[in-house]
């Protein structure tokens, strides 16, 4: 046990990410991929059912999409790649083999840039990207071990996937999460991936503490899940080492609901998939095609542009470009409010994001025009920041409940949120009231206690329900107090 690594050993993480490419039809037949709201086995044909005698035909769009991903992730797209059969028996595997790429994948190498835990940009290297078909899905009546029976749904069979395999270059669960976020953003920018679709991304994670055995955590199906599963593993493995035990090389499953990993029943022996080239498909040659693959603006480029074009801070730019919808939202808001870039960046990256997260809502539920007019009210000084948040909350709540969302103008009027100003008498009246109600604080103030002023301004703020500007209130209060002397 003396060769055991120390319990604070470096974490090493590598990921295998399966992404569903968002094409209209399946990888090897014309069946629609849009099956999620439909009944089981409604999007199937002889080919994707793997009926005897059927043969696969490659969907060109899938290859185009996969090449886009390869290019965008700085891979070398292979001029010639090949499909192979991975043979194994499973009830949801229609042909008892999966058509995938084995020793000649579509793309090799490449990297994803992330912000490392040390705050510096880091390149996470990629091993390969390959194309494969998804198998069907089993629905167990009861559970897999003791259920009375299982049903098979082949709607998912033949859905195009790419598998992106990274090198073990991530040093923490957080970096793994960042890698995935960057990957998702890139795929979304490319228009080849819809992360909102159930099961669109599935991850197998390999994790080890340097010098110790590697553990594979299988089938993690959420972004948060990856970080959680890995964090659990780091703790578990460190604890083992701390107690002088060793980490077994094994496969574990992540139990999403409980946030833990659990050892999969150890297999008696390694599966032999008996890979061999798929005789029904010819090698895939893309030499001239790959040159014509054009890439749109990608997250890094857009982030840089946000910094230069809109003077966003790097942090804001990172948040705003981290999701395609967010970036698009920002730009459509800014387009309507050209001189409110800074305001828009802060309000979207910080305030709006927080409010959306709290409600578990997506950015697509916010109308950029209405949001822009809210910013206009703020910019013009019609309402204070505090009132702005209140207006925003009203809008989001209305949206959440499915009610008609009012314009910020209407909300401001209805709730009487317009900023008070010195000359409409409201502020002065509030100040007089506060002075009357708080003789003790006045005494303190007179005695030179600094805190008393803040207290009094706060009280006055309360009376105006956030409609007043703290600075202005402060000036007015000071003036009123000096009148008392």
């Amino acid at each position, binding site marked *: 046990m003396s060769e055991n690594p120390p319990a604070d050993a470096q974490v090493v993480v590598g990921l295998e990410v399966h992404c569903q490419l968002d094409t209209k039809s399946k990888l090897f037949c014309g069946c629609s991929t849009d099956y999620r709201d439909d009944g089981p086995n409604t999007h199937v044909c*002889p080919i994707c059912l793997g009926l005897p005698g059927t043969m696969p035909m490659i969907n060109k769009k899938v290859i185009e999409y996969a090449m886009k991903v390869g290019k965008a992730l700085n891979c070398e797209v292979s001029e010639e790649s090949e499909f192979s059969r991975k043979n194994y*028996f499973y009830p949801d595997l*229609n042909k008892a083999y999966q058509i995938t790429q084995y020793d000649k994948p579509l793309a090799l190498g490449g990297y994803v840039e992330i912000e490392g835990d040390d705050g510096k940009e880091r390149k996470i290297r990629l091993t390969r990207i390959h194309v494969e078909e998804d198998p069907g899905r089993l629905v167990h009546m009861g559970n897999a071990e003791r259920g009375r029976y299982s049903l098979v749904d082949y709607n998912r069979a033949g859905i195009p996937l790419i598998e992106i395999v990274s090198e073990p270059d991530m040093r923490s669960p957080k970096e793994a999460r960042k890698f995935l976020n960057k990957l998702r953003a890139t795929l979304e920018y490319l228009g080849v991936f819809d992360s909102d679709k159930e099961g669109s991304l599935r991850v197998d994670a390999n994790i080890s503490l340097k010098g110790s055995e590697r553990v594979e955590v299988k089938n993690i199906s959420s972004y948060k899940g990856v970080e959680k599963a890995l964090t659990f593993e780091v703790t578990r493995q460190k604890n083992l080492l701390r107690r002088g035990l060793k980490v077994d090389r094994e496969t574990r499953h992540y139990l999403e609901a409980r946030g833990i990993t659990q050892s999969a029943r150890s297999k008696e022996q390694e599966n*032999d998939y008996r890979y061999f080239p798929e005789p029904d498909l010819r090698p895939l040659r893309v030499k001239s095609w790959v040159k014509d693959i054009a890439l749109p603006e990608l997250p890094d480029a857009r982030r840089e542009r946000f910094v230069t074009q809109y003077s966003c801070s790097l942090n804001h730019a990172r948040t705003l470009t981290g999701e395609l919808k967010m970036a698009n939202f920002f730009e459509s808001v800014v387009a309507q409010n050209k001189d409110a870039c800074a305001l828009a960046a802060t309000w979207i990256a910080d305030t709006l994001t927080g409010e959306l997260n709290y409600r578990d809502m997506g950015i697509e539920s916010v109308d950029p025009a209405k949001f822009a007019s809210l910013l206009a009210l703020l910019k013009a000084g019609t309402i204070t920041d505090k009132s702005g948040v209140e207006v925003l909350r009203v809008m989001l709540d209305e949206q959440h409940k499915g009610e008609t969302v009012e314009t910020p103008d209407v909300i401001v009027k209805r709730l009487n949120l317009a900023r008070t100003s010195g000359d409409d008498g409201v502020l002065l009246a509030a100040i007089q009231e506060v002075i009357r109600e708080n003789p003790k604080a006045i005494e303190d103030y007179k005695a030179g206690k600094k805190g008393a002023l803040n207290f009094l301004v706060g009280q006055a703020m309360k009376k105006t329900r956030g409609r007043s500007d703290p600075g202005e209130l402060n000036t007015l209060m000071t003036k009123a107090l000096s009148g008392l002397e």
Partner: protein
Amino acid sequence: MSALRFEPDDKYNAFLAVCKEPKGGSGKLSGIPVAVKDNISTQGIETTCASKILKGYIPPYDAHAVALVKSAGAAIAGKTNMDEFGMGTSTENSAFGPTLNPRDTGRVPGGSSGGSAAAVAAGMVRMALGTDTGGSIRCPAAFCGIVGLKPTYGRVSRYGLIAYANSLETIGPMAANVSDVSLLMSVIAGHDKHDATSQDRPYTHTPSADIKGTRIGIPQEYFGAGVDPAVAAVVKKAIGRLEELGATTVPCSIPSMEYALAAYYVICTSEASSNLARFDGVRYGPAVETKKSWHAAFQDARREGFGPEVRRRIMLGTFALSSGYYGKYYAKAQVARENIRKDFARLFADVDVLCGPTMPTIAFRLGEKSDPLSMYLSDILTVPVNLAGIPAISVPCGTVQDMPVGLQIMGRPFEDERVIDVAYAYEQGGQP
């Protein structure tokens, strides 16, 4: 269009399913009943590959070749018997009993398209579709005394052919004479968007008996050890007749031939082990015992459903593909295959076709070849063509002991027309 009645007097067990009132239409094959080998999918007609494991399976779609035959007006007369999943050279390996050779019911019709050949030879149908993986069209054509063409790989779509060994097999026409084979070929050849290996090479040929100047290579291996001298003599005589008709002959050699059989059996069993894995009782065939765990249930269904020859080949292929052995067997077989392809290409630089016997012997007696190896050895003259993907035809060229002998004519890739012409020339002018 026409409603036919088809009630053959099937004394030979040629058919596994008969369509009593097959519907025809109009077109090139209007009103012609065509029999289809039972490994080719026919919509609405039980298709079993002569295996218990597919008993009751009714495909919901037509194979591309079947759809073409139908749209040319032919009537699908029924499904013909075969060696289970195409594995065999005698049609004795059918789960539903062997087919008998109409020329001598004590003998096998050859395989694996034995049912199709017998149906044609007995006059029950004018034409039939067969499939050829290592000689499965040519062998029964030779044994039953009919004509059978194994087209160039990719010339006829395999879509709907229940795969045994994808990279080797092809669907092809069988009939009593070359003209009918050519006619059926003209219907089934061409590109199919469902088959990625299919080529856009339609066949619009009318056979011509003019073979003046055709250069014929005679590979010495086709007359070597294992070839019955009586059969060799008949075939040599037939080649002599071709010379009289204006062809010239050139002796030649295919050195890679000695590896052909080994390479063939490694490749076909490897592919078969993968192709037949889907027959697990979950989707078709006899249902699995659901109270058992998956793998136990699959094992039972497959042990019950597959015959001994199929099980043997699955095991051989599984072994050949397994890690640690892949390089030793499958990869090596592919190298041998490439050498065979090169040997043929080299020969075809000098000659237009190659000729030799289709089979080393006449049809064997039922049960005569009881050990698998001696059966495998009888494929020696047919498998090189499949490894190279080239076209070859078998045309009757005489008899030995009153049993027919086949002349095999092999051609360059996509020169199916030329092998048809040579066969046609022999057929028209063969008997002096």
